[in-house]
C-alpha cells in the first residue's frame, strides 16, 4: 500500500498550478469564488483558454484532441481547477455528447462536431428529461417520425423537453426521441442531434427558486432534422444514453470544489463573531464544520480508492460518490448561510449577475450565499436523484 502520488503526478500538479496562476483571469476567479452567476461569455472565455492549451477535454483520447492523461492526472487537473476557482467547462458537449459521438457516431459526425466542441463553436444542451418523467427517463414521449422528400431523408420531431440547462444559449441539443411506439419503452428510443436554430423550436425559461434562469422548457413543433443527424442505429438510443450516463466515475464527487468551499466557510467563520468570539471558536459551529471536513476527507479517500482500481470503465461506485458528494455540497451551502446569518438575506440580482460592483449591503461575500444554498438543492435531484442512486447501489452492487 502506497498512498503517495508519484513524482510524475506531483510534477504534473505543479504544472497545472503554474498554468492556472498564469492563465485564469482574475475577474472570472473572483466571480466563481464569490458565488456570482457566470454569463455565457464567461464560460466561453475560459473554455477557449483551456482549448488553446489543449486541456479542455481531459477525458478524450489523443486521436480526437485529448491530452492523453491518466485517470489520476485527470483527477489532479479537476482538483486544481476546482481549488483555484475556474468556471466549469460545460459538460454537455465535452463530456456528454462527445463520448457518444466518438463511440457510436458516423465518421461525418465525428469530423464535423468534435472539433467544434473543442473550439466551443457550438454550445450544446441536453434533451433527456420530459415533463412527468423525472428519473424514469425511458418514459419519454417526444416523437421522431422518419420521412423522405426531394431534399433527402429526415425526421419530423414533436414533443417537449424540460429542465434543459442553459438551452437559452444553445446551438445544438442532443435528444432522446421515440422512434417506435410499439415495443418495450427502452427499445423504441433513438439519439438525435438537433440544431437549436431549426424552425419549430421554442425555448421557454423556467425560473428557479433562487430567481436564476438556468433551465428551460424546449418545445418541438414539426421540427425537421436531417436523418444524417441520427447517432448510431435507429431505436438503439437507450444503449447510447446509458453509456453516456455511466461515463464519469469520480468527477461527480466534486471533491476539489468542496475543499475550496470548506476553506471558504472557515474564512467566513474566522471573520464572523458570535458573542464576541470568532464563530470558528464556537463549539457548536466548529463541531458541524469538523464533521463535514472529516466526511470530505473520507470522500476524497474513497475517490482515490476508486481511481486506483485497474478497471477504468464506469461503475456503480459512481452512485456512492454522487450521493455523498452532493450531500456534502449541500451541507457546505447550509454552513455558509449559517456562518453569515442575517447578512445572507439581502437579495441583489444585479450584483449576482455582475452588473454592480458591490452588493446592496456591501457584504459581497455574504450576499450570494442564500441564493447559492437554494440553487444547490438541485444537486441531489439532478443526474438521477439520490433516491435513484440508492436504487442503483442496492440493485447493481448489493444484488437486492
Amino acid at each position: 500500500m502506497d498512498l503517495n502520488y508519484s513524482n510524475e503526478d506531483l510534477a504534473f500538479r505543479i504544472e497545472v498550478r503554474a498554468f492556472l496562476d498564469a492563465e485564469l483571469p482574475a475577474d472570472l476567479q473572483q466571480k466563481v469564488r464569490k458565488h456570482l452567476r457566470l454569463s455565457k461569455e464567461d464560460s466561453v472565455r475560459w473554455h477557449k483558454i483551456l482549448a488553446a492549451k489543449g486541456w479542455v477535454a481531459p477525458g478524450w483520447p489523443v486521436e480526437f484532441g485529448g491530452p492523453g492523461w491518466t485517470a489520476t492526472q485527470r483527477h489532479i487537473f479537476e482538483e486544481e481547477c476546482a481549488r483555484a476557482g475556474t468556471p466549469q467547462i460545460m459538460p454537455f458537449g465535452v463530456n456528454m455528447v462527445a463520448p457518444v459521438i466518438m463511440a457510436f457516431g458516423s465518421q461525418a459526425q465525428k469530423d464535423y462536431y468534435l472539433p467544434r466542441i473543442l473550439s466551443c463553436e457550438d454550445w450544446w444542451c441536453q434533451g433527456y428529461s420530459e415533463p412527468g418523467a423525472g428519473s424514469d427517463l425511458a418514459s419519454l414521449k417526444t416523437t421522431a417520425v422518419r420521412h423522405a422528400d426531394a431534399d433527402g431523408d429526415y425526421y419530423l420531431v414533436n414533443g417537449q423537453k424540460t429542465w434543459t440547462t442553459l438551452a437559452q444559449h444553445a446551438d445544438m441539443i442532443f435528444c432522446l426521441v421515440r422512434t417506435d411506439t410499439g415495443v418495450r419503452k427502452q427499445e423504441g428510443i433513438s439519439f438525435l442531434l438537433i440544431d437549436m436554430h431549426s424552425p419549430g423550436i421554442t425555448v421557454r425559461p423556467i425560473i428557479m427558486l433562487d430567481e436564476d434562469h438556468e433551465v428551460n422548457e424546449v418545445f418541438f413543433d414539426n421540427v425537421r432534422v436531417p436523418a444524417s443527424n441520427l447517432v448510431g442505429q435507429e431505436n438503439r438510443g437507450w444503449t447510447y444514453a446509458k453509456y453516456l450516463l455511466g461515463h464519469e466515475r469520480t468527477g461527480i464527487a466534486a471533491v476539489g470544489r468542496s475543499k475550496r468551499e470548506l476553506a471558504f466557510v472557515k474564512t467566513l467563520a474566522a471573520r464572523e463573531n458570535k458573542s464576541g468570539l470568532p464563530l470558528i471558536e464556537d463549539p457548536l459551529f466548529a463541531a458541524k464544520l469538523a464533521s463535514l471536513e472529516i466526511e470530505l476527507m473520507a470522500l476524497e479517500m474513497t475517490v482515490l480508492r476508486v481511481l486506483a482500481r485497474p478497471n477504468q470503465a464506469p461503475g456503480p461506485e459512481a452512485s456512492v460518490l454522487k450521493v455523498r458528494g452532493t450531500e456534502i455540497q449541500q451541507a457546505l451551502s447550509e454552513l455558509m448561510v449559517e456562518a453569515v446569518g442575517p447578512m445572507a438575506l439581502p437579495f441583489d440580482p444585479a450584483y449576482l449577475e455582475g452588473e454592480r460592483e458591490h452588493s446592496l449591503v456591501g457584504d459581497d461575500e455574504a450576499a450570494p450565499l442564500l441564493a447559492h444554498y437554494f440553487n444547490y438543492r438541485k444537486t441531489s435531484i439532478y443526474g438521477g436523484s439520490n433516491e435513484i442512486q440508492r436504487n442503483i447501489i442496492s440493485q447493481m452492487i448489493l444484488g437486492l
Partner: protein
Amino acid sequence: MDFNFNPEQLQFADALKRWIGRDYGFEARRAIIHSQAGVSDAAWATLAELGMTALPVAEAHGGFSGSAVDMFVVMRELGRGLVVEPYFATVLGAEFLRLGAQAGFAAAELLERVAGGELKLACALGERQSRHDLFDIATRAQASGDGWTISGEKKVVIHGFEAGALIVSARAGGSEGGGQREHGGVLLFVLPADTPGVTVTGYRTLDGQRAADIRFDGVQLTRAQLLADEAAGADILDATLDYGAALLCAEALGAMEALFEATLDYLKTRQQFGAPIGKFQALQHRMADMFVHLEQAHSMALLAAVKMAATDPVERRRAVSAAKYRVNQAARFVGQQAVQLHGGMGVTDELPAAHYFKRLAAIELQLGDSDHHLARFIAQPGFATGVVEAEAA
C-alpha cells in the same frame, strides 16, 4: 497510488480467516466467552503459532517489525471473526514497550516474550474521572528511595485480569494539583501483574470481552520499571493511543463488513408478503446508506493506518481522530440498522448479528468516542486557518 495489500499481508489475512472459519465459529466463541476464563489458551497458542504475536514486535526482539498497515489487515480479520482473545491489549502494550525502548527503556526481554506468545499485556490507563481523556490521570507516582511508589485505581482495563504484565500511567508526585489533565508530568511504568499491592478484579463486558479494575496501593517499583519519564511520557502515551485507535478502526471495519454481509444475506432470504424483504425499497435504501457508511469508514480506517507512519504528529492526530470519529459514526449506523433489518431476531442473543452490534458499540466507547475525537480534530493546529491540503500523502 497503490491501495493493494502485499502478498505477506494477504497471507496473514488468509491464515486468520482459515483458523477462524475452522476453530472460532459462532458456537466455539460462545463457549469461550461463557467459560470461566472467558478466553481460550488454545486460541492464544494458535495466534502465536500464526505469527500474530510476533508481527508488531521488532525483528531485533524476535518479531516481524509489522507496520500499522500490517496490523490493519490482522485487526480487520479479528473483527470479522469477533475474536475476544487478549490480542489487542497485548499489541497496544507492545507499542508502549517499542516506543519506550526508543526512549531508553530496556524492553528486549519483555518484547521477546510477547513475540513468542508467552506474555500477555494490558494497559491500565483509564480512571473513573477520565472518561475518554486518558491524560486525566489521578494515579500518583512518588519518588521513593531508588524507585517509585504508585497509588490509585484504574477502571475497565481491557483484559487486565489475563495479562502477565501491566503498563500503567501515573502522574509524577511533584506535579501541581491543577495539572491532573496536563501533558507534562505523565509517567509510564511496566510491572508484573502479581506485584505486591496490586489488586485485580476481573469481570465480563457485554460485548464478550473481559476487563478488570486494578488498584495500586503503595506499590513499590524500581527505577528500571519506569517505561517513560516526564520528558517522554506524554508523547508516548499520545502516540500509542493513536495506534490503538487506528487498530480499533480496522477491527470495527471487519466487524461492520461481516455484519453488513450477514444483513444483506438475511434480506435476500427472509420472505414477507410473498417476496424477499430485500425487494422493498425502504429496506434497499437503508442498505444503500449502510454501504455508503461502510465505504467512507473503510477509506478512513485505511488513512489512519497509513498515517501512523507520519513524521508530523499533527498529521497523525488529525487522521486518527478523523478516522475514529467517522468509524464510530458508521459503527453506530450500521450496527443499529443491521439489528433493525433483522427484526425480532436481531434483538436476540442467538444471532451473530447481535454480537457484532455489541462489539461495535463497545469499540465506540474505547480510546475515544465521537465527541472526544471531533474535539481533538478541532484542537489540532491549522483547523481554523482554512488551509485544507490534500489528505493523501
